[in-house]
């Protein structure tokens, strides 16, 4: 046991990280390198959404709006002030985080279904608002940016540089999220998710933790939006439409809400599924929908949640030491229903 993790988990994590580090050098071509860079970027957004929805139990169908804030912060800072991309990532995350934190206050009064409704409206309203702020955002046309270049002196292609940048930030933010969720904050959030009344009776400030979850979630979304803009070297309002926000939720749910590994699985899913689905259907929508429905029917805990349950079940059957409770999150806590039948 090192840092509270057993040796086998360490080995698996180290092997996966090594694979992620070496793959672009030996296995991946330029296209695949960029796609996997996007996997890391979406993993960041999904870790954030997971903090909000998986741990604090607040559903967001609108985290694409916070990605938009991050993406546009980067684009505008470069466009108007020529600030290099690297320096815009933190401001992008902080600005989105502030917006999310502020959105968290009205959200406090909205439970379950109504919060889903309000964030759904947020997602639908995002592109028109961006378009209406023409002088700042470039309106309908968006902002075309120069391609991000690998720093001179590093023997990397531009794609590889973007890949490692995204991977490094994703790992750092994963560890940050893990530390936060593993400690008192994580316990408080889970307590709120599983029963607000009981949590607040135990002295947990609902206002503090729920707005914090919104802020952290939006910070992650903002960083992801900033990196995605750097990667595509272009922003336009329609990139931050309803399907983006819904794809984020699909990724979080399919990966597994309330699990640490879920976001990475979910990100892989939402980046690669459209690429494969386009070979079958002209658009990815149908396969997204079918898979989302099937996951809700068969493994409502998502892939990671389902796998944890399977592992726990096997260990119990083997009669070994009782496994630590994997705590796969129910998709919605008892508080999430506007009224249960």
């Amino acid at each position, binding site marked *: 046991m090192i840092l509270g993790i057993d040796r086998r988990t360490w080995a698996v994590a180290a092997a996966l990280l090594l694979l992620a580090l070496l793959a672009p050098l030996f296995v991946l071509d330029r296209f695949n390198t960029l796609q996997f860079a996007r996997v890391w970027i979406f993993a960041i957004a999904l870790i954030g959404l997971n903090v909000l929805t998986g741990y604090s139990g607040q559903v967001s*169908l609108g985290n694409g709006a916070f990605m938009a804030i991050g993406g546009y912060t980067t684009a505008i800072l470069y466009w108007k002030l020529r600030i290099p991309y690297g320096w815009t990532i933190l401001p992008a995350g902080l600005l989105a985080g502030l917006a999310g934190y502020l959105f968290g206050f009205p959200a406090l009064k909205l439970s379950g279904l109504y919060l889903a409704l309000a964030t759904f409206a947020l997602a*639908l*309203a995002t592109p*028109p608002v961006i378009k209406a702020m023409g002088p700042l955002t470039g309106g309908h046309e968006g902002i075309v940016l120069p391609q991000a270049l690998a720093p001179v002196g590093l023997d990397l292609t531009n794609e590889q540089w973007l890949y490692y940048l995204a991977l490094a930030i994703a790992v750092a933010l994963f560890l940050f999220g893990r530390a936060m969720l593993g400690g008192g904050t994580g316990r408080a959030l889970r307590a709120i998710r599983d029963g607000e009344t009981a949590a607040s009776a135990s002295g947990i400030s609902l206002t503090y933790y729920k707005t914090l979850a919104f802020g952290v979630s939006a910070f992650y979304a903002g960083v992801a939006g900033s990196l995605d803009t750097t990667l595509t070297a272009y922003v336009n309002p329609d990139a931050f439409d309803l399907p983006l926000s819904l794809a984020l939720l699909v990724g979080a749910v399919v990966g597994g809400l309330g699990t640490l590994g879920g976001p990475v699985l979910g990100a892989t899913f939402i980046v690669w599924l459209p690429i494969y689905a386009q070979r079958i259907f002209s658009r990815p929508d*149908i396969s997204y929908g079918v898979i*989302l429905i099937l996951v*809700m029917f068969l493994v409502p805990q998502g892939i990671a949640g389902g796998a944890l349950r399977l592992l726990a079940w096997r260990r119990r059957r083997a009669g070994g030491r009782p496994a630590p409770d994997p705590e796969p999150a129910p*998709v*919605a806590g008892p508080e999430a229903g506007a009224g*249960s039948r």
Partner: protein
Amino acid sequence: MGIELAASSLLEGLVQQVVTGLATGAVYASLALALVLVFRSMHALNFAQGEMAMFGTFIAWTLITQLHVNYYLAFGLTIAISMAGGVAIERVIIRPVERAPALTVVLVTLGLFFVVNGAAGLIWGYVVKAFPGPPGFPQAPVAVAGVSIGVQDLFLIAVTLVLLAALYAFFRFTRLGLAMRAAALYPETSRLLGVHTGRMLALGWGLAAGVGAVSGMLIAPIEFLDPNLMQPVLLYALASAVLGGIENPAGAVVGGFVVGVMLALIGTYVPGARDLRLAFGLVIIVAVLLVRPAGLLGRPHVARV
């Protein structure tokens, strides 16, 4: 004299905008009615309601322009087909998660949203199509007391009011309507008294799908028909339903008319606001939920913790 003239034309313009607003409001009202029907029966929102309406509208388009069916016959046929479709969707997709937490149902309806939207794109493509208006109602507006009023606008308003009256009569005066209300309010008791609550739920989805299809067929001649037709309409319908009280059908219709008129007035008289109408929908939803969650005509919920 000049000032009087300007004032009267200003007034005419205002009345005209109000009528136009009531007409588009009728569309929001009918989709809001569909949302309320589902919400009343299972306390969940069907985020795919707009997409189902869009799909029904494409069926109507096929009937009218491809198979040359009479407009009004096609209107009725589409409602019937949509109702059957709504029942089938409830039986196959919603029933397995009927007792799951509300969020699970929301996610399933979001999955349905993707499937229906993608299926419509696959079948009918993404090229916008013109949808005919009701024959017998002239395109040209008529002048009433100096105000020109679109006759088709009156058709929209009338259809929605008839729809509301029919639903009211159904729930108030028929045994089936009574059974549906009972199943929604007291599922356990109703089951004990021999009401098939599952079937009532399916019927609720069927009714909602039929009502939703009407909203699609009403808006399609105004906007052009394509798979994303109903997404803004859904947002306004949600705003209408929330504004009127999400459990109250009459409230949904009132909410629809109010939202329609407000959007028309803001779009005309506030410079630059036309593009921000979707954001305005968001503002209505958040504001109502914060200030008066039960809506204009709803009754506040009191829960014991």
